């Protein structure tokens, strides 16, 4: 960024602010769009856009590694998988959704308000000293912090991910077990060639196990 010094002098002290507001102007309408767009897949894509803008915010705040991790894992990895899951499930989802009753709306409004208030209080309880020093964007620093100071949260995160992986494997396994149980009835029927081929395949693998 030191190459932009002169440019920054020309727009005195406002380049960061300008970029921040630009990204905010991009992010907030997209976030609203995630909520209010009737097409659920469109709102999925808008969510990717929101994460992209937040990645830009991190870049403005000199947190390169965080920004790139945000882009790679949240914007592309996770949200895209969510969008694909939406595509694979019922495409007429948005048409079946009905507006809630007044009762439900009041309840959800109260819950959302309480959550917002809690988060606001939590944020205000911490002091946020403004420092002009740029945080070192070194990956080494982040790595050291993760493995020493923040080792426990890191481990918790890894346990969470492990649980998710085990859950995914269990889901896949359950399907397999059902298909194993269904096999004999299919074999008794022996209706079409592809089914028998499939059965032969699974029986071989089950004996191998």
């Amino acid at each position, binding site marked *: 960024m030191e190459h932009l010094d*002169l*440019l920054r002098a*020309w727009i005195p002290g406002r380049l960061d602010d300008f970029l921040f507001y630009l990204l905010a102007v991009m992010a907030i309408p997209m976030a609203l769009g995630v909520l209010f767009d009737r097409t659920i897949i469109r709102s999925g894509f808008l969510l990717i856009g929101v994460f992209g803008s937040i990645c830009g915010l991190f870049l403005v705040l000199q947190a390169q*590694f965080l920004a*790139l991790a945000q882009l790679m894992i949240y914007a*592309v*990895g996770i949200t895209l*998988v969510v969008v*694909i899951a939406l*595509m694979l499930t019922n495409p007429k989802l948005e048409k079946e959704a009905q507006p809630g009753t007044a009762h439900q709306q009041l309840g959800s409004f109260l819950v959302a308000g309480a959550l917002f208030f809690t988060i606001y209080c939590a944020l205000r309880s911490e002091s946020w000293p403004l420092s002009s020093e740029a945080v070192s964007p070194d990956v080494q620093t982040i790595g050291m912090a993760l493995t020493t100071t923040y080792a426990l949260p890191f481990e918790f995160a890894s346990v969470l991910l492990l649980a998710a992986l085990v859950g995914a494997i269990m889901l896949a396994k359950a399907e397999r077990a059902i298909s194993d149980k269904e096999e004999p009835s299919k074999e008794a029927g022996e209706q079409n060639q592809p089914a028998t081929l499939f059965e032969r395949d699974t029986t071989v693998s089950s004996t191998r196990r």
Partner: protein
Amino acid sequence: MIANAAEIRKFTILSWGWLTIIFGLVWAVSWLVGVAIPLLLANVQADWARLVTEICQVLTPLVAVMVFIPINAMFMVLAERRALALFTVRKGPNRVGPDGFLQTLADALKLLFKEDITPRGADAFMFTLAPIIFFAPSIFGALPLLAAVTNNHNLFQVVNLPTGIFYVLAVSSVPVVGIVMGGWASNNKYSLVGALRSAAQAISYEIPLVLSIITVCLMAGTLDVVKIAEMQKGGLLNWNILGGGALSGLNKYFQALAAGQADAHQMLSQYYPDWGSVIATVVLIACTVLLVGIYLTGACAEINRIPFDLPEAESELVSGYNTEYSGIKFAIFFLAEFTNLFIVSTIATVMFLGGGDCPLPDWLNPLTNPAVTQPVGKFFSFFTDRIHLIDPSTFFPAIWVIIKVYALVFFAILVRGTLPRFRIDQLMAFGWKRLVPLSLIIFVLVTFAKGAVRLHV
């Protein structure tokens, strides 16, 4: 001698002609913007002159990339068609211009003038946005590599980031969003299926790809592409493909032997003190060779090239995610695909093949001999010192990078001419059951072997 010498000669002439045009133009543009304008304005004392100079220097890498991408894609399409023709005993396009030299230029012009159709029922906004999201990362993703392939030239230092390779990987994972978006917005079953396949494939194969790159970064101890390229200087034995620098002690030993030093053997025992280090070296070499294979496989899948071109399998889906696209939008998809091929080849060159390093070690290379270089340098001093047209410390590395990158591209074309397409379940099984465990095992092996031997001494 060779029955096909005439065709091979034509192909060679065509390739060198196009390469000269491409890199000559890029060179001229970056010199004009980055050197000539600041030189002209050097004597002007006004504020605006300094501002223009700054802006020029900031814009140079971007302009160079913007000039490079379309011409390079045109060349690569032509080279691919001609090379495939060679492999399949055909002639290839040879009608437009001398020996088909201008074929892709004509194709590009035709695509630009074609009608731009948005299908009925399509989401027009996303339909337009998709090619842009697909193409933009290939411009911005390549920027940090510019510094690495030009031996950290002053003009391109701006774009070098401390998170170098991570930035490249993160940005080059974005195009899949464009594919899914385009496939969904087209309102076409084939497009949607192609897009879903592409996403599944890209997410699966990104893991081994990133793991292989991370392993190299682990050996190098940095994410900075320029530093990784600089570490590998000094000949073939220093390259990451051969043990990630584990053989650089051997390189030093050979150098000492060639110089006739008496304590050369002592040097060898200093770098490889015990059997453990020798075993670690062998393990590292095996691991890095496998890593290159994993990287190339993952990269092939990531950019949807044969044998992993399931997203646009012509025999099943009409043309995959870009079925409904026409005119300039299709041209952008096409452009980005070939640019991505170039970018992954460049990453492989920088990370594994020593960047702009000559394969010959310094002690064998006559070109580094001062007796040769000094008179030649004097001859070109007007270009090098007065108008800064040529920077010898950038020129030769750039030539080597060009040779290596296009050799990898040619290899990709050869693979395309040879291997058939995967089936989708085979593809997933190969990715998750073979490549991911293999790259994890290599990661662990390298972590241990790295401790037993000194890398990049």
